[in-house]
């Protein structure tokens, strides 16, 4: 049964996306560098690299290293700050017909609120994704995202100043994904996204040194995909708010797993580095899957198994 032109659109927090595929924050910049490879208008959404209130220098190098079917990074959220972001990156993205999810980072609560307040009135932002799960900065980041109490508090405070929907990006470095998802929901989050990277370590035994200057880094890539699917399933079944699923998606099948586990959208991360057109390949693959299986609407697949 082959159905032509299946409906890939999904809606999330009152916004309609032409398909369920976006990029994982930090793997695609603001799309500027990849626009020479990919037609950005094909994407369901663009999720930007983390934006803070002032420019961040990030960590010393080496910041990245390859691992089996994956990689580790400890960039440390280097970014030019919200003013440059608004002036340059948002202006660039305005040229495209694609919703923009702005990822927000901070060391302390005030910094998150500064960014959300400053950007709330800017044109061209669909929603915010709040990074409370970066394993590579000492303060803020994951410190907020590993305690349900802290997470609930941050969510509430950020929601209070935001004029746009707020998605909380969750860390997998926790005991119970369901508890964290519930805390975000109780704090008033409009949605959650997961997973960020796993805290990991690699040692160069010949030099007897840590490979990354930061000693630890976040593990991502296909190696973590099955764990991500399990965590997305647990989170999606614990809350009513929508979930964006990510973690090692390399193919249409991987993205479909996320949707079937309960995610409303799915994000491609590390694989953008392997294949700049990875997201387009995933979108085309989903369309083909739907045609071949006679699926008329992608929403029929979301959370289709209990």
């Amino acid at each position, binding site marked *: 049964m082959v159905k032509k032109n299946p409906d890939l659109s999904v809606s999330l927090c009152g916004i309609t996306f032409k398909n369920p595929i976006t990029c994982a924050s*930090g*793997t*695609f*910049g603001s799309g500027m*560098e*990849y626009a*020479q*490879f990919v037609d950005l208008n094909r994407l369901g959404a663009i999720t930007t*690299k983390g934006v803070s209130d002032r*420019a*961040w*220098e*990030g960590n010393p*190098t*080496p*910041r*990245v*290293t*390859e691992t*089996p*079917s*994956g*990689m580790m*990074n400890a*960039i440390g959220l*280097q970014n*030019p*700050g919200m003013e*440059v972001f608004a002036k340059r990156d948002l202006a660039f993205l305005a040229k495209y017909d694609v919703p923009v999810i702005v990822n927000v980072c901070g060391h302390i609560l005030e910094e998150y609120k500064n960014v959300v307040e400053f950007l709330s009135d800017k044109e061209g932002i669909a929603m915010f994704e709040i990074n409370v799960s970066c394993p590579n900065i000492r303060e803020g980041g994951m410190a907020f995202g590993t305690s349900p109490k802290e997470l609930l508090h941050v969510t509430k405070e950020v929601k209070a100043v935001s004029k746009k929907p707020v998605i909380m990006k969750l860390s997998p470095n926790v005991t119970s994904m369901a508890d964290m998802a519930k805390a975000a929901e109780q704090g008033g989050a409009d949605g959650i996204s997961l997973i960020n990277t796993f805290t990991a370590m690699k040692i160069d035994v010949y030099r007897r040194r840590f490979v990354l200057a930061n000693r630890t880094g976040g593990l991502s*890539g*296909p190696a973590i995909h099955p764990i991500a699917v399990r965590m997305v399933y647990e989170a999606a079944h614990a809350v009513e708010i929508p979930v964006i699923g990510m973690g090692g998606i390399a193919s249409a099948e991987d993205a479909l797993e996320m949707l079937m586990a309960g995610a409303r959208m799915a994000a491609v991360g*590390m*694989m*953008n*580095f*392997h*294949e*700049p*057109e990875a997201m387009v390949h995933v979108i085309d693959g989903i369309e083909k899957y739907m045609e071949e299986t006679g699926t008329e609407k992608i929403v029929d697949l979301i959370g289709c198994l209990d």
Partner: protein
Amino acid sequence: MMKEKARIHSRRELAEGIVSMWLKCSLADHAEPGQFVLVYPKDSSRLLGRPFCICEVNPEGDEIRIVFRISGKGTEEIAALEYRDIVEVEGPLGKGYPLECAAGKQVLLMGGGIGAPSLLFLAQRLKKSIVSYGGAKNVSALLGYRNSALKRFLADDFLNVGIQTMIATDDGSDGIKGNVVEVAKRLHSQRVLLPQLIYACGPMPMLKAVGEFAAELKIPAYISLEEHMACGVGACLGCVVPTKERDGHSNVHNARICTEGPVFEASEVLW
């Protein structure tokens, strides 16, 4: 730009662990000296491209040459590719060596170990420019190796360009004894070598010393840097170098080696 499939046209081992390959690919016709390509291993457990500088381009403009050292599993796999094998490449990436600043100058190319391949393409362009208006006055190359076992790889290629080519080894087993910076200093004090502009590629400590040498002579030095990379196109911010001035793109004192570089003016770098 896109990833493309390149065909291996030839493969040769220049010394133990040093491999030279010609790859047929469409990116060759717009590659510039100092730019690089990412070559992707086929083994799906190794997902990141390996960055290699473009060593030269054939006269027809449809093949690039890469010369690299086997330094891990990824380069080991790429080195094992054979004639007619297909491999995925992406490029040309980054900003290469500025050529216009060589006008009217005595130019010195300094290559340390596996840094030499980055300078061959440049040597060819500079040599060609000597005969034309606005080109370099003359060009010489100083290539440093650990020892004679490295068979002064690529030195013949530099000689074939028709430029003065000097060899140095750390242990004196071939050419002049000493590292390239020590040797350049000695030749300068003997007034054998009087550069007005330096281009260099090699390990970081060497490039730092080249920067200091150039500062002493009050001449510019353009150096090609290396760092662990992931995306290679400026998105991930994995490969940065600390800079003295605030970088225009990043708005911090870190510039992307893959995009603002890999070639930087030595005095811009915060060592």
